[in-house]
């Protein structure tokens, strides 16, 4: 299998920011992403739980792309996290069909 190395970002953010973050990722060169809804969690801003009454849900945005795109996104995200709750983790993954990322 011909595998290529790419960078994966896992971005935990509040639901209201997802649209803007998807737009940003596209702008930085990411060609795709997948979003998941969490059920509960905790961080420096306290703990939350997804209930029907409070709409506090966090989302996990996963995106795989080029190292450069990831670096560009990190600059944006650092700025974002200065104001809003959230966390980003970067790691290396191997992918098939390198030309797609």
């Amino acid at each position, binding site marked *: 299998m011909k595998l290529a190395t790419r960078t994966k970002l896992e971005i935990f953010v*509040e639901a*209201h*920011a997802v*649209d*803007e973050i998807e737009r940003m990722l596209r702008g930085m060169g990411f060609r795709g992403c997948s979003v998941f809804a969490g059920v509960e969690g905790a961080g420096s*801003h*306290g*703990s939350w*739980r*997804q*209930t*029907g*009454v*409070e*709409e*506090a849900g966090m989302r996990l945005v996963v995106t795989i792309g080029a190292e450069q795109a990831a670096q560009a996104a990190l600059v*944006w995200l650092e*700025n*974002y996290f*200065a*104001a*809003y*709750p959230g966390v980003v983790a970067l790691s290396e993954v191997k992918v098939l069909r390198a030309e797609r990322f």
Partner: protein
Amino acid sequence: MGALESIVAGAAANLLAPAVLFFALGAIAGWLKSDLTIPEQAAKTLALYLMVCIGFKGGVEARASGLTAELVSAGGFGLLLSFAAPFAAYAALRSFGGLDRVTAAATAAHYGSVSVVTFAAGSEYLRAIGVEFGGYMAAVLALMETPAILAALLIAGAPGRIQASAQSARFKPTLWREVFLNGAAVVLIGSFVIGVMSGERGMARLDLFVNALFQGALCLFLLDMGLVAARRLAEAPQLNVRLIAFAIGWPLLSANVALLGAHALHLSLGDASLLAVLAASASYIAAPAAMRIALPKADAGVYLSLSLGVTFPFNLLVGIPLYHAAARLLYG
């Protein structure tokens, strides 16, 4: 029957209403840490359903009675209350409550805005004891959601602040959408307009859906609210006696201001009671959603614990019959 006795009887009847008892059940289950949960999407759907019913019924009734001067005065007064309240609440929360600027502003938004479910419980209470009120009060409810949020943004200087960083500037459209087009407001106003447009013919088709099921859905939703309120209270280290005093004192004060104004405007007894309930109620959907975007540095643990954990139960269990009793004293 003397005034006091009738107040006591009204309070007792309220406490024995199934919806209130289901709230208590949820609160007890939450307090005992039972694993009982209401599926999240079910609770959201119930909330949506309650808003559709409130808006639609209100619209149909408003059409039947004509969109009278009373709607204009109740609506205008409601708008004013919602916009003015955060300034007073902010001052109280800063000085008496000891909150930081941003958290105080965000909390003030919650107390100026309104709670749909408190309104629902209030109108069910009036229905149960046979007091009439205008269908247009549903529109007043919808109108009172947003002004308080705008006032809080002014107080916190947020629209300016938000432009400060490149990132947050991007969130301005999201914020304005959240403020003016949040789901709750859209559904309430939309359903009200649909009620006005489709009138009695529409009601004929939706009667059972909108009326017969309402109480049951309210019970299930309040069961969930009880669970959430209990958890909120248990996980709120930030709460102190002063803040809790605010969360009970503010609705008492606010309800009475609303009553005096309603009386001065010659609104009916029922309308005055509901305005008092609205003024006393605190938002826990529209306001937090907007505050998370506009004032992310505010402590959500404070505003949600106060609104959901203290003020909501207080209004549901004690406030609603109390405000109505006060209205009756005032209306003699």
